[in-house]
């Protein structure tokens, strides 16, 4: 007396069909559809989901959004930076020397630098909210789904991946809407490779130092590298430990509607506030710890401080990549939040200001090492906030640790590849 035999098919399917049948029957008597009006939504969808134009339009809209997020926020970043600079200067007047240093260098200097990244992250989330509220994002996910399916990803992974360009913390939280544990897990594991806003200052610094006018291209290449690695890893996971096809993607395409300023700002805030919370906690703690480890023993040179000691201890592991103790030390601190790497390099070289740090970098390393460092920063262990989010969202230490190891190993391997290519091209 087996169910499938009696029904002729999987009971789940039969039940679903029956429900839809009943819906039709019921509606046949209680719903009268008028002449199908050609709505604004139909008009817009003709182009947005067009076979050939759909993807170019998608690219254009997202390019515009990223341009808005990064270019329009630039002066505001400087304003915030200026604000904290003034605060740092003011705190030099505090009588207690250690306290003055803690507040001036540690808190205002360290944390302030990180807070300058609020504008691009928030602008990006604003852009995403506008696209979402207008109804377009659903179409974008729909378009991406075809491609993502082939890459072993679920169409619903699109929005979390997109959010990752701002901050991985809200991005990973957004994976809740993904059905299917495997799909969700793959998206979670792969998300940190999407280059978040925090890594940008590191790229900008290094690229600015080594690559001159090609700097923007070098920075873009990091974003591209992140996406490529994410895709390849997703494919690999699909074929090996997380086998299976992605769950079918059924999604309602909502009607288009003009987004309201108020609504979009609220959505932006909901996501942006995750980054602020991270800043308020991990980054603040990180800034203070970093300050402590590099200022003590008090009065010692950076190389002899705790920071320096840690760097020296780990340096041998990274010498194949051309990283010396200074880089290693700053990478260790970047574990707290990747933005900290810049600040850390500044402290380690005992210089202040971006141009000074750039100068120090060029003096000590060649472009290949610079590029390797950029790639390493992109790929290695995600920041503490992200690790915490991974544990929360995946609910397991096993996968969180797996991600830690995976990212570190990948970063190292890619680093070796880049170093290798560099060697072939003639750099020692």
């Amino acid at each position, binding site marked *: 007396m087996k169910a499938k035999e009696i029904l002729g098919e999987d009971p789940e399917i039969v039940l679903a069909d029956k429900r839809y049948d009943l819906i039709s029957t019921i509606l046949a008597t209680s719903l009268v559809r008028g002449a199908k009006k050609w709505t604004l939504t139909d008009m817009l969808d*003709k*182009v947005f989901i067009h076979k050939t134009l759909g993807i170019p339009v998608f690219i254009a809209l997202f390019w515009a959004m990223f341009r808005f997020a990064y270019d329009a926020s630039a002066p505001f970043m400087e304003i915030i930076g200026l604000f904290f600079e003034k605060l740092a200067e003011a705190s030099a007047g505090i009588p207690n020397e250690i306290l003055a240093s803690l507040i001036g260098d540690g808190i205002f200097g360290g944390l302030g630098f990180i807070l300058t990244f609020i504008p691009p992250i928030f602008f990006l989330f604003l852009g995403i909210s506008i696209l979402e509220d207008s109804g377009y994002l659903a179409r974008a996910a729909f378009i991406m789904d075809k491609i993502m399916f082939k890459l072993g990803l679920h169409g619903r992974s699109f929005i979390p991946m997109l959010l990752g360009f701002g901050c991985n913390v809200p991005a990973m939280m957004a994976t809740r809407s993904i059905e299917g544990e495997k799909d969700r897990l793959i998206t979670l594991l792969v998300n940190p490779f999407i280059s978040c806003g925090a890594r940008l200052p590191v790229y900008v610094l290094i690229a600015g130092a080594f690559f001159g006018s090609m700097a923007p291209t070098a920075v873009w290449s990091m974003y591209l590298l992140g996406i490529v690695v994410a895709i390849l890893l997703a494919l690999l996971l699909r074929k090996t430990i997380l086998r299976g096809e992605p769950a079918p993607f059924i999604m309602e395409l909502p009607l288009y509607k003009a987004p309201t300023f108020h609504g979009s700002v609220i959505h932006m805030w909901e996501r942006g506030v995750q980054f602020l919370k991270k800043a308020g906690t991990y980054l603040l703690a990180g800034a203070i710890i970093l300050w402590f480890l590099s200022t003590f023993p008090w009065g010692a040179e950076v190389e002899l401080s705790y920071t320096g000691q840690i760097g020296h201890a780990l340096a041998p592991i990274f010498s194949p990549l051309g990283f010396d103790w200074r880089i290693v030390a700053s990478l260790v601190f970047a574990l707290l939040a990747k933005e900290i790497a810049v600040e850390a390099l500044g402290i380690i070289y005992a210089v202040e200001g971006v141009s000074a740090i750039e100068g120090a970098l060029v003096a000590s390393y060649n472009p290949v090492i610079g590029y390797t460092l950029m790639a390493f920063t992109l790929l290695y262990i995600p920041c503490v906030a992200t690790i915490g989010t991974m544990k929360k969202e995946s609910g397991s230490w096993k996968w969180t640790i797996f991600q830690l190891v995976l990212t570190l190993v990948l970063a190292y391997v890619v680093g070796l590849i880049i170093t290798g290519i560099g060697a072939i091209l003639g750099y020692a």
Partner: protein
Amino acid sequence: MGFNKNVGKTIAVYSFVIGILYAIFGILEILVGWGDLIGTGVSLIQPIELAGVNVVPPDVFGGIMLIIIGAVYLTGVRQQARGKREGLSFLLVGSLLAAIFFGVYVVILLANGVGYVFQFEDWLEWIWLDDLRPGIWLFLLALPGAYLALTKKEWRE
């Protein structure tokens, strides 16, 4: 008046012109910006200036986007000429894209203005006229089409 062949032919010509203009300036932006992209600093054509102001910014990707906008306008031409209301979709979306890019470029211009006012390092040599790129003034030409596509509800019957 519904959307018929007579109206359609006029709209088709308009879409064609706007589409071609976007495409042309898109290509120009690519040519001017090519040098920056591949790092040689030498572009395929000289920067285009008008009274000392840079009219076409070097921007390969920006240029590609302009071409995409042009493509949307151009795709609608055939259906519009035939008086098919489906063609209006392309005019509508083309206008929308043009408006979005206009908006984004204007916001960036204003933001740059803020940087200039504060006299931050990166903005000391900024000329606001340089930021008046094709993406901005081409939209002014596209405006009538946008207006008609949005307001002429009788065309959608």
